[in-house]
Structures are given as C-alpha cells and as structure tokens.
C-alpha cells in the first residue's frame, strides 16, 4: 500500500483553561488517502473543528497547542513547520471551507477579486489570467451567469451562493485535501443537498481528498468513504462507512444512528420511535480522566467502564474504543 496523503499519529491537543491544561483531542490517529472522503462525526464540542484547525496550523494562539503527536502531510510533519512553510501549504495543498458562508467572505472585495487573489498568491498568475480562471471556477461551482456575478460583492449573494464561492476559492489551486467544517449547517435543507452534490462531484473530478466535518449522519452515509466518530476529544469508532452504519461497534455511534430515521431501514408505514442519546457531553475539565467518557450516558456501562479507559478493539477494518464492543 502506498504512503497515505495525510497521517495523524497520536495527536494530543491541549487547551489552556483557568483550571489547567485540558486535552480537547486525546490520542487521535488516522489516515487519509488521496481522493478519499473521510468524515468526522460527533456532537458539538467533541473536538472535530479543533482537529481541522490543528491540521491547518490555526489553533487559537496562546490557548490551544499541539502537546504531542505528529501530523504528517506527504511525510512532512506539519506540527513542526514554521509559518512560511505552513503558508505555502494553506490554501494551496490543503484548503478549508467554513461553517458560516455569510461571514467567511471579506465584505469589501468582490467575489471575483477574492477568488483571483488566491490564484495570484499561490500560482503566481497575472491579473488577467487569474480573473479568467475565477470565472471558470465560478461556473464550475454552478453559479448561473458567472460572468456577471463575478463582480458581485458578497452581500449581493445568498448563503448557498456564498458557500459555492467559498468552495471555488478552496478548490482554486486544486488542493490535495479540502477540509469542510460543517459546510452546510447554516444552509437550508435543499441547498444542503446541492452543496453536498457539488462537493462530491468536484472532489471526484479533481481527485481532491475531502475531510468532511459534520453532525449529519445522513450526509456521512451519502458522501464519505470512511468515518471517524469523535466523542469528547477521543476517537470512539473508526472504519468504512457501510459497515459502521450497518453494524456500529460503539454505543455512541449506535445512538447517533438511531437519531436519524431513514438510515435505519426503508421507509415503511411503520414509524418506530426515534431514540435520542440521553445526557450531555462531559465538561472539558474531565476530558483527561482514565475512564470511558461516554460511560455516564451509556446503557451498557459498568464499573470497568468508569475506572479504565477502553483500548481500541479492532474488527476487520473497523475499530471501536469500547469495553463492550463485542456485545453490540
């Protein structure tokens, strides 16, 4: 097997709190191959976005830091890179789109200027070529009448259109990896589907690997090849999407799946009750403890779960950090 494009080894990210250092990401390892779509799933505050920011080297200054582990991009450790090496990768080899399309474009420049800017910065294109390419890109993200819309300011576009512009900017330099941090959370459902279609099609065309951060299990099932279920900064379950969804090996994954109606079965006349995962994510202070952090919300939990952190148990391609993984 060839070397993976991105390899994260034993990553630990700590946040400085008033009470001390708390690990928001604890011992995370994963691999991303070229052209593949990997999905991060989990509730809010599980460290999904932190992982993305850590890959980009954009952890909040003086608050977040990489305490341990390596982020290998094509064999080079990004955690050790200086800022100019990182800048050469950001936006060029790895780019990112954000949750809020309404605020992630600079309001004082036209969308064309913002797309062309990236091309000029990373590809050294001249003004005219960059502008031409910007129109092509705007067309590629399916904005009708791209030639006219290119001189629009962000406030003249709708949320969905702005997210398309963000995608155009992110894909302008044909990056190897695109990190999409909840790209559709702020959009309505029909637009969500269009954006996912667009991401999937463009990812296939350009061979860009996508890291999709979401809490939408439906989107994962549709988009991703493999998935990582995060819980409280730890990897709960990891594996190819189909087996994980059809046979989850972690009670948290199981809970997440049972929240979504159409994943369970074909829609029939019978409407089973949807179950929720009771309780809330534990507070940051307790993230470091040697126990299963899901124990307080788990119907299978016993004393062992509450006193010792579960190791990763492997089932073929799938792995689960649960003491009771074989019982599920």
């Amino acid at each position: 097997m060839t070397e993976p494009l991105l390899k994260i080894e034993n990553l630990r990210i700590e946040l400085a709190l008033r009470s001390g250092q708390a690990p928001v990401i604890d011992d995370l390892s994963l691999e991303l191959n070229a052209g593949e779509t990997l999905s991060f799933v989990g509730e809010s505050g599980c460290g999904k976005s932190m992982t993305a920011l850590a890959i980009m080297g954009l952890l909040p200054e003086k608050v977040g830091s990489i305490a341990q582990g390596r982020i290998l991009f094509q064999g080079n450790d990004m955690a050790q890179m200086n800022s100019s090496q990182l800048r050469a990768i950001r936006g060029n080899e790895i780019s990112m789109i954000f949750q809020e399309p309404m605020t992630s474009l600079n309001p004082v420049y036209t969308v064309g200027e913002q797309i062309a800017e990236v091309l000029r910065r990373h590809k050294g294109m001249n003004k005219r070529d960059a502008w031409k390419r910007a129109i092509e890109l705007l067309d590629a993200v399916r904005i009708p009448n791209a030639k006219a819309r290119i001189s629009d300011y962000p406030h003249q576009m709708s949320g969905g259109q702005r997210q398309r512009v963000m995608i155009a900017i992110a894909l302008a330099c044909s990056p190897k990896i695109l990190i999409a941090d909840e790209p559709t959370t702020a959009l309505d459902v029909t637009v969500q589907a269009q954006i996912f279609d667009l991401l999937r099609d463009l990812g296939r065309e350009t061979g860009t690997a996508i890291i999709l951060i979401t809490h939408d299990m439906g989107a994962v099932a549709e988009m991703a090849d493999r998935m990582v279920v995060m819980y409280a900064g730890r990897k709960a379950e990891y594996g190819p999407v189909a087996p994980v969804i059809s046979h989850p090996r972690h009670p948290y994954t199981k809970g997440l799946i049972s929240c979504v109606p159409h994943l369970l079965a074909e829609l029939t006349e019978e409407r089973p009750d949807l179950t929720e995962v009771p309780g809330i994510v534990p507070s940051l202070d307790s993230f470091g403890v040697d126990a299963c952090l899901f124990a307080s919300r788990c119907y299978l939990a016993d004393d062992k779960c509450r006193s010792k952190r579960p190791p990763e148990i492997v089932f073929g391609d799938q792995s689960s950090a649960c003491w009771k993984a074989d019982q599920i």
Partner: protein
Amino acid sequence: MTQIDDIPAKARSPFSEASEMFRRNHAAVAGLVVLLLIVAVAIIGPMVYPGDPFDMVWVPFTPPGEEGYLMGTDYLGRDLLSLLIHGAKVSLTIGVSAAVVTVSIGITVGALAGFYRGWVEELLMRLTEFFQVLPTLLFSMVIVSLFGASLFMITLAIGLVSWPAVARITRAEFMRIRELEYVTAARAGGVKNGKLIFSVILPNALPPIIVQAALMVGSAILFEAGLSFLGLTDPNVASWGQIIGSNREYILDASYAVTVPGVAIFITVLAISLVGDGLNDALNPKLRQR
C-alpha cells in the same frame, strides 16, 4: 419562466450605497458645498486676487468697505481680504496634513496593537496612554517653542498630540475584525500577516477612521488658530490663525480684523464637521437601511 438566478443583480458597490446615504443627509450636503467653495477660493483665489498679502496697501485700521477694501486693513495697513484668501490655502493645508500625520501614526499603532496583541499591544497602548495624559495644548506649545514655529513643526505638533484617539479606534476595530471568520478563512488561504493587516482587516476597519479623520481636519485648523493666537506661529506665512494672532492686541479698536478670519475659521470647521457627520451616516452600517 425565468429563474431567479438569471435576473442580473443590481450592481451596487458599497461606494454607491454610501454616497446615497450621504446625499440623504441634507446638512452634510450643504456642508460639502460650502467646503468645496472654500477649497475653490484657496486654489483659485490667489490667481484672481494676486499680490503679496503682506504688502502694506493703505492706512492701517481702515474699516471694511471703505476706500475700496472690502474687508478693510489691519494694524499694518495690509489688505485683510488678500490675507484671508491666501490664508485659506495655508489653513486648509495645515488641517489636512495634520490629519494625515494623525491618521498615519494612529493607524499604524492601533493596527499593530490590535492585531498582534500580547506584549506588542501592552507596549503600544502604554505609549498611547502616555500621549493621552499629556495636556495637548501645553505639549504642542513645548514642541513648537523648542523646535521653531515653522509650518512643518506646527503640523507635526498637532499630529503628535492628536493621534491617540485614532489609535484607540483602530485597535478596537482590529480586535473585533481579527476574530471574524473571513480573517480565519484568509489565514487558512495562506495570507501573510502584513497582507492580513493592510488588505484584509484595514479596509473593513476604515469607516470609523475616515469619519475621525474628517473631524480631525477641522480640529487641526482650530488647534493651529489656538497656537497662533498665543503667538506660536510662523510670522512669514499668512494663516487665518496668524491673522487673528497678529491683530489680537487691537481687538478693541479694530474688532473686524479678528472677527473676519474668526468667522472664516468658524464656517470652515462647521462645514467639515457636517461633512464628517454625513460620512458617519454613510459609512456606519448600523444606520444603513437595506
């Protein structure tokens, strides 16, 4: 059937939107007209009304309107109208260049402090506070009397005592904007810090700074008049303040000699303030109705 997307969006740049908001403020438009008239006088006036304003042309203390001198003559028999016209250019130049000095220092200090935070911010803000607690008139008098009362020194002195306000506004805007998502997005796109400060954040921070700069022009003219009144002025250059200053002692015998330039200053500063107010309407997004 037309798709909604096919209807070309009405191209309205932020500029055209702002100018519409400005035009809605009638006082500001009036102020702008008056200001443009004064600027025209300052530029065209000396050509229409040539001659050295410092030449003695008639008997001193000729009241306005007599002997063909519309504004009368001052204590040295100089034509006040000529002084006024030539002084317009000097006063406006001092106002604008002092505002430029103020804004340049203020933006640099405020941007660096607001962007980098940490010890850079501590250092720059303590410096700002140091300049803020100095009595402004006294401090500028010290500078001018130490380094000579040339126009350049007066402009610099006014700039040096006025920048802290601009620095504070700039810093506050930077602290707000640097946390916005498009700045993170720009970082994620590999933008360098220098570019982040000047082409990503600064254009978004400009509106309140522009308003402040416009008002600065007015207060710099007033400041210069104040210094001149105290005698701290270049006696070889006719600014409005200088006319007032040199005729100060004769205020009881020839009140018109200080009133005429005084009214000129009043009208100019008022016009500038109205324009500043209009700019505030035009550039403040909270007042904008969509």
